[in-house]
């Protein structure tokens, strides 16, 4: 079972929900629980879970390098690259490591055999555990702009059928490639949203992207609920999105979050909500 926790924008409390849900799931369910922090541009689930890290691994991708002695500036590599990662200038070849998808076409097709592959570091992945659950996290290397490949690598590393675990994924905020990569093979997506106009707007973008690309079942958790969340509730009704939980607005929760306390520590009554939700998903 893979449950992804996502939100249309940052700062909605997505990580607070994911980490607390994982803690309760580990208590209640007999299967192993693994929380995977896929928010590689700003990973922070470790702050709430305080895991002991037992291993790290570099996430890499092959990118071409050119042997300028062998290259005769024929232009073939730029022509075959579907990702615009190569420009052939009058006197040399320019390779954009960050745009390269590692498909290898240019290396194959260079008539002069002037291209070879080297490993380009995308970021670092870590794994570890708390006393009750397994934990993994990816972190994008500073200066890298593409989060998708490291999320793919992180999931491939951690999600293995023989593990027979439940995975709870903390997806990057937004509705672009990186978010969709994180939620791609989830069985269920929990959407954390705030009852503000901007929150609703970003939520609708994410819902649209998931429906168009993946068709996964989704449900909404309203964070900082003020009891009556009119437009957001209307939207959920219209889009047939079940509202699975409401977390009311409270200063204590915000303060506890800033100190890295898990949501169920400050708000013990949330345990029941999570248990019900896990039962429903099961």
């Amino acid at each position: 079972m893979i449950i992804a926790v996502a939100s249309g924008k940052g700062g909605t409390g997505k990580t607070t929900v994911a980490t607390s849900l994982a803690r309760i799931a580990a208590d209640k369910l007999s299967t192993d629980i693994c929380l995977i922090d896929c928010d590689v541009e700003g990973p922070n689930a470790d702050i709430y879970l305080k895991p002991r890290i037992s291993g790290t691994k570099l996430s890499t991708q092959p990118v071409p390098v050119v042997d300028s002695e062998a290259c005769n500036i024929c232009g073939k590599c730029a022509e075959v690259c579907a990702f615009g990662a190569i420009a052939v200038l009058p006197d040399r070849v320019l390779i954009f490591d960050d745009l390269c998808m590692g498909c290898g076409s240019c290396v194959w097709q260079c008539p002069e055999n002037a291209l070879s592959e080297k490993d380009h570091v995308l970021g670092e992945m870590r794994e570890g555990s708390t006393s009750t659950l397994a934990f993994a996290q990816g972190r994008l290397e500073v200066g890298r702009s593409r989060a998708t490949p490291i999320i793919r690598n992180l999931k491939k590393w951690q999600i293995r059928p023989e593990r027979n675990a439940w995975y709870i994924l903390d997806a990057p905020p937004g509705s672009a490639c990186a978010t969709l990569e994180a939620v791609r093979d989830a069985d269920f997506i929990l959407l954390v949203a705030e009852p503000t106009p901007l929150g609703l707007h970003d939520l609708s973008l994410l819902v649209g992207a998931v429906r168009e690309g993946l068709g996964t079942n989704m449900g909404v958790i309203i964070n900082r609920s003020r009891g009556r969340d009119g437009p957001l509730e209307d939207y959920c009704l219209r889009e047939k999105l079940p509202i699975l939980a409401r977390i009311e607005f409270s200063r204590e929760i915000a303060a506890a979050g800033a100190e890295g306390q898990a949501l169920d520590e400050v708000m013990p009554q949330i345990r029941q909500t999570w248990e019900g939700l896990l039962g429903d998903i099961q």
Partner: protein
Amino acid sequence: MKIAVACEGSLPEDSISMVMARCASFQILDTESGNLESKPNLLKDGEHGTGVKVAQWLLEEGVTLVVSGKVGPQAQKVFDEAGMKTLALKDGRASDILSKLRKDFDS
């Protein structure tokens, strides 16, 4: 020299495009011959690396000055490394921009 103005439509009377790689066409003026060409930007709806692809195309067209609202960082790198110049303008019609630039270069 060859000046390319990124344009919102397909005609010289259309206004300058704010995003170089996503423009509808380039109005390309050869200042020596006075020849003006309109080249549709067939790459504009691409998903990946559009800036670099468009920059490569303009380089192959022999363009030496690229005028648009804004150039993305990767395309800018290609222009810089290839010794091509860029000029950022906020508004104006391609035809007006080209005649003004032409005057500047003639004088």
